């Protein structure tokens, strides 16, 4: 794609666009047999926000991601992404629409290099056909060169300098998590969904991750963040939705959430765990 | 080869025809079902296609034939089911032992090292394909092996020098006795024994898996191997037990097959294995009752198919059926579960 610049430069029109709804869940309900993993959940995410999705283990956060990205179909309710109803859409089409995600349990292409992993993400918008690739026609060459450049830039951005050609499997745990972010970013998302990106990170790494998330937002990407680390969530997000047993129990700014008695009740056990 | 038009009359022309194809199909379906159990158990527990299970069955058929040769010599005789019964029982024991041994050997050599290493499924399947080949070929080369060790003379009744790949028959052919007619089909004592023996074994196995401690361990492992291991289930043992049961059932199937058909060969397992697998998938792989249903349905359907299209298309009917089932109902007729749990 010739046009690679928009999201690499800070979006100056951010203020103007803020308020446009990127994602809207309306009465989303999802049942697995007898278990209701999402129960009548509604919320909206606006463009340019860093949005937190928190809740105790098993609250349905990952399930929410899975429903958004087309892995599971909702039992009832709707999910709208930039005005498109996502019901029945193929997973790769949803990604192409501009929603990208990472995985709670890392799912990289292990025997591909870090660079190749990111290139796979970058290929989403490639218009290169089989024959153009076979005969190395100009579009293949320019697209490939641009994707390569972009991939390297993203790898450096997330902090994987100098290990571009390492196999994903051989990267350190932290690098693997960061690589997932780079791979997702390569698809040029409007909404980036991060599922516990800081799991297993030390405080310094968490700090760097917070900086990175802010940097991504400044590039015009809306971020949806699942995270258990309260300090990180409170420090970086603009708004938060809290789930418990599949139900939304609170929504608001970090300050509001911190003082919400329902949230405190839901989190009492978890807070202790975090502290230890 | 002649080309014939579709002959729906052969199947639907008369009630007698229809019943006779159906009854014949049920008998074969029972054998498919018994073999299918081996696929279904292993798949339920390991999520692996035990491709070499066909060879477990094939070795069982040879165990049956050899038992007959051993106890009878090679003089061809016809016996009724009653006369042949003692030898048949001996053959059943031999076949179950041989098949179970081969199954356990497979587990030990071709699977366990891979499971330990957490290898991808594709690799396990390739390992199984390799083992299947090696086993079938080893049987096909048994005359060579015998001559290597200089035993070809002593063993010539068993290896048929130079003809190891040919059809190898029981010296005793069991003469079925017609008992009563269903439609135009004369139901014989052999048919009834095959059908009921297969049913009885399945019921026994079903109860074993549902009601015993071992069965619980199998179901627990099928459901969630990690939790089962945490709760003290020895997963290696469970896997072994699974292969053992599959082998025993294949041995029984081999005996019934030899009763009905009377001969086998080095590649006899292949097509039966694929069909039994088809039956397992049709019923819902991992589901014991599904294996029974799938086996019977497959046996009947392919008999109907061969009535309509001609018997040379029998295998094609079976394969097309497999593809259709996978498309329409990928988890089979009864759904996939070992015991109650989703595997």
């Amino acid at each position, binding site marked *: 794609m010739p046009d690679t610049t928009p999201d690499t430069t800070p979006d100056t029109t951010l203020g103007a666009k803020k308020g446009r709804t990127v994602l809207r869940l309306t009465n989303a309900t999802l049942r697995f047999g007898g278990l209701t993993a999402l129960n009548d959940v509604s919320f909206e995410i606006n463009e340019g926000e860093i949005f937190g999705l928190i809740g105790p283990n098993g609250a349905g956060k990952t399930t929410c991601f899975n429903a958004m990205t087309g892995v599971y179909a909702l039992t009832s309710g709707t999910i709208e992404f930039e005005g498109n109803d996502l019901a029945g859409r193929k997973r790769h089409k949803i990604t192409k629409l501009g929603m990208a995600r990472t995985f709670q349990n890392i799912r990289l292409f292990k025997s591909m290099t870090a660079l190749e992993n990111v290139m796979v993400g970058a290929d989403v918008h490639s218009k290169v056909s089989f024959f153009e690739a076979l005969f190395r026609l100009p579009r293949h060459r320019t697209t*490939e060169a641009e994707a390569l450049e972009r991939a390297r830039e993203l790898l450096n951005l997330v902090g994987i300098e100098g290990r571009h050609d390492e196999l994903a499997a051989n990267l350190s745990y932290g690098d693997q998590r960061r690589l997932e972010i780079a791979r997702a970013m390569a698809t040029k998302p409007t909404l980036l969904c991060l599922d516990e990106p800081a799991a297993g990170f030390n405080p310094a790494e968490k700090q760097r991750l917070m900086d990175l998330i802010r940097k991504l937002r400044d590039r015009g990407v809306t971020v949806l963040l699942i995270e258990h680390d309260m300090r990180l969530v409170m420090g970086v997000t603009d708004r938060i939705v809290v789930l418990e047993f599949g139900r939304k129990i609170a929504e608001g700014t970090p300050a509001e959430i911190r003082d919400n008695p329902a949230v405190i009740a839901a989190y009492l056990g978890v807070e202790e765990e975090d502290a230890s | 080869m002649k080309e014939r038009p579709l002959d729906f009359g052969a199947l639907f022309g008369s009630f007698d025809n229809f019943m006779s194809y159906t009854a014949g199909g049920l008998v074969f379906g029972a054998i498919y079902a018994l073999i299918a159990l081996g696929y279904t158990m292993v798949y339920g527990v390991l999520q692996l296609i035990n491709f070499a299970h066909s060879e477990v069955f094939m070795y069982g058929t040879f165990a049956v034939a050899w038992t007959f040769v051993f106890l009878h010599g090679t003089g061809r005789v016809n016996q009724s089911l009653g006369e042949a019964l003692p030898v048949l029982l001996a053959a059943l024991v031999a076949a179950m032992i041989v098949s179970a041994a081969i199954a356990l050997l497979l587990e030990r050599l*071709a699977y366990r090292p891979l499971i330990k290493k957490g290898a991808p499924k594709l690799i396990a399947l390739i390992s199984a394909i390799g083992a299947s080949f090696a086993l079938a070929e080893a049987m096909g080369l048994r005359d060579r092996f015998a001559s290597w060790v200089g035993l070809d003379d002593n063993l010539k009744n068993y290896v048929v020098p130079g003809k190891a790949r040919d059809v190898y028959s029981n010296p005793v052919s069991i003469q079925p006795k017609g008992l009563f007619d269903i439609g135009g089909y004369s139901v014989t004592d052999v048919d009834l024994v095959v059908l009921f023996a297969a049913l009885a074994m399945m019921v026994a196995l079903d109860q074993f898996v549902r009601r015993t401690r071992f069965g619980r361990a199998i179901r627990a492992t099928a459901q969630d191997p990690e939790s089962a291991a945490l709760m003290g289930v020895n997963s290696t043992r469970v896997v072994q037990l699974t292969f053992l049961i599959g082998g025993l059932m294949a041995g029984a199937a081999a005996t019934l097959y030899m009763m009905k058909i009377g001969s086998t060969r080095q590649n006899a397992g292949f097509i039966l294995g694929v069909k039994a697998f088809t039956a397992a998938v049709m019923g819902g792989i991992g589901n014991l009752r599904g294996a029974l249903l799938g086996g019977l349905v497959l046996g009947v359907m392919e008999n109907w198919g061969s009535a309509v299209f001609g018997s040379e298309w029998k295998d094609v009917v079976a394969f097309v059926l497999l593809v259709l089932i996978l*498309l329409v109902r990928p988890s089979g007729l009864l759904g996939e579960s070992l015991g109650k749990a989703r595997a």
Partner: protein
Amino acid sequence: MAKDSSETKVKKDRRGFGEKYAAAPTPVKVVAVTLLLVLVYALPLLRPPILTTNSIDFGTVMFRVIAFALVALGLNIVIGYAGLLDLGYVGFYAIGAYTTAVLTVYHYSWPFFLALPAAIVVTMISGVLLGAPTLRVRGDYLAIVTLGFGEIIRITVQNVEWVGASAGIKDIPHPTGIGAKPNPPFDQGGLFQVPRLQWDGFVPIVDLEHKTSFLAFGSRDAVPYYWLILTFLLLILIGDRMIKASRVGRAWEATREDEDAAELMGVPTFKYKLMAFALGAAIGGMSGSFYASSQAGYINPQSFPLLLSMLFVATVVVGGSGNRWGAIAGGALVAYLPERFRDFADYRLLAFGLALTVLAVWRPEGLFPPRRTRRAKAAEAEIDALEEGTENEEVTHA
């Protein structure tokens, strides 16, 4: 610019000696490749001692070796790149062969070079027809479904008069050559004739009695067929390399590694699986087409047993799945060894069966990663280079 980037990809694919090769200056590379090509083309004429088969014509063996290598290359796309276990590949080989036979002699009388592309198209379509419904089912089911497909094809050609039934199809014409048809034993056809070598122990003698006609195809001499199929093999090889180092190759690899993750990263995995399946089918069909119109000009259902499918899979896996040179080497070995060691022929299936299991068990990751281990090494080398200066790096890659 982009050429450089594809060069780096290629470099990662190479073996130890390949790195040395990559480091050599361009003229040296050109000379080396040219020499190698000449050697490969001339092999059946050079008839090197030890290598040459005694009981069966060496040219014929070499033709078969390349035919198998071509099949292996096609199946490598399906199994090695896309991770789809296709156990019915012989079905496509048969469809290619039968399409050619039907078009050139049995029902029509097209020239070979028209029938070949037709055969390729027909097999490709049959690949799509088989793949479209089945590639959606679970991966390990695919193995069984394709196995069934291989059997269906064989049973069909066995029973349908229109394609010769069990008697098969004979007198399949040879490809149209240039110049006169060869006229054995003193071959005079073609554009010109090339003599071959005869070895007296290790002393080469030019054998003027047996000449190979250049670009003419007869029933005695297999060498022209060898040249023809070798040329196609090389073309496919180049194409394979181009596709592998492109978005298509990446999509295949990602799909094989983790289909769900690939899908969620925007890869239409079904489309790419189908593409791999159809391409593999087309290459298998191409090889079948060459097989049908080779010297003997005769095919029957027995030429396409299911065992052949297993051999093909063995070829790819033994050679190193996902590695095109490994696949070619595997194909060559599978076709060559039994001919060179005829006494061994009876045991080859046993040996392949054991080899598959032993390989899988001893090196479960070893079937796939010889290339990747190498790649990791190449990556290290690049990191070393990188440490000398990042700007420099950027220039060479961007």
